[in-house]
């Protein structure tokens, strides 16, 4: 199924799925960091692969992204993406909450990267778990990959993945705000279902 031919009802169903997934991810994050995590209303939008690079703004923005693939009946790509500075602050927050007495500035870069990868992994796995509970079936999730790079390059990779299927990618995204208004950290959870898995998903939700 081509993402551009999804009906409004189907997009609504996918948005609700994003809501359930992101809600579970926000809860996991909130427990891990023992702080408030707010989320906005998820969006589900079919985007032309040719417009993807600029979909989130300046392609030259420096971002940190954690990427995983879900395999099995429902295949999709999941990305947790943040401005690199916000990513650094999230790691600081984790270190100060979980490793008492340790100054985040003393932690070596490799360990910071590993911490960020793990935060991303927990967010994305929780997102996927909520969906799995909802639609059933067996799923596995890949080892997470981390990149600090230009936003455009990250989306370029996404465009080449979905360009192999067709001309559109379906983006289901939710912004998370971690730690309240003052000094909070934001990040985006992005799910891109593979075109072959729409049928599975929408069938289970009975809106095919």
């Amino acid at each position: 199924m081509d993402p551009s031919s999804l009906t409004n009802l189907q997009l609504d169903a996918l948005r609700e799925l994003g809501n359930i997934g992101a809600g579970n991810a926000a809860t996991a994050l909130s427990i891990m960091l023992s702080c408030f995590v707010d989320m906005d209303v998820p969006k589900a939008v079919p985007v032309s692969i040719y417009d993807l690079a600029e979909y989130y703004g300046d392609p030259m923005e420096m971002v940190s992204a954690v990427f995983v693939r879900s395999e099995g009946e429902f295949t999709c790509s999941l990305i947790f993406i943040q401005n690199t500075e916000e990513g650094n602050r999230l790691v600081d927050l984790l270190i100060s909450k979980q490793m008492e007495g340790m100054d985040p500035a003393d932690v070596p870069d490799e360990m910071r990267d590993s911490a960020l990868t793990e935060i991303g992994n927990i967010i994305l796995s929780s997102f996927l778990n909520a969906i799995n509970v909802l639609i059933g079936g067996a799923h596995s999730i890949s080892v997470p990959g981390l990149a600090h790079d230009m936003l455009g390059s990250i989306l370029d990779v996404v465009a080449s993945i979905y360009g192999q299927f067709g001309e559109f990618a379906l983006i289901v995204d939710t912004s998370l705000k971690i730690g309240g208004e003052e000094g909070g950290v934001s990040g985006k959870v992005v799910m891109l279902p593979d075109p072959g898995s729409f049928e599975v998903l929408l069938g289970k939700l009975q809106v095919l």
Partner: protein
Amino acid sequence: MSKAHHVGMAEMTVVSSPESLVTLGLGSCIGLVLYDQTAKVAGMAHIMLPDSRGAKEKALEKPGKFADTAIPLLIEQVCRRGAVRSRLKAKMAGGSQMFALPGAQTDFLAVGSRNSAETTEILKKMGISLVASDTGGNKGRTVEFSTQTWMLSVRVLGKGTSEI
């Protein structure tokens, strides 16, 4: 500063000296430049995938998307602007694999290396010499080709800019 033309995903653009060609944030895609210094003409393609076999008809509306459809068309377009085919030279950058996920079924994540291999192969078949390339690795690239120095500057975050 002369005008810089931005070449978007799957697009192809041809310019004459002194204008330049820019592509922001290449990941697994390839920025390929074909140029003729004597005729002062250069063209850039932003190639996404190695080959168009198996692609749906709709995808072929964007010939710049695939290496096998982009390269012949780019040759035709630069020649139409006055370049001479036998004088054409090529430079390229991109084709990185930004995420390595061990154990996952990630053929489509390794598309970067297939892109650069296929582009190199097609250029060779068409008798165009590839004078410089910067491909592979796991970092994104922003490239700019100058039709004054005929150099391709490649910017990588955290590593700075190099000219090839």
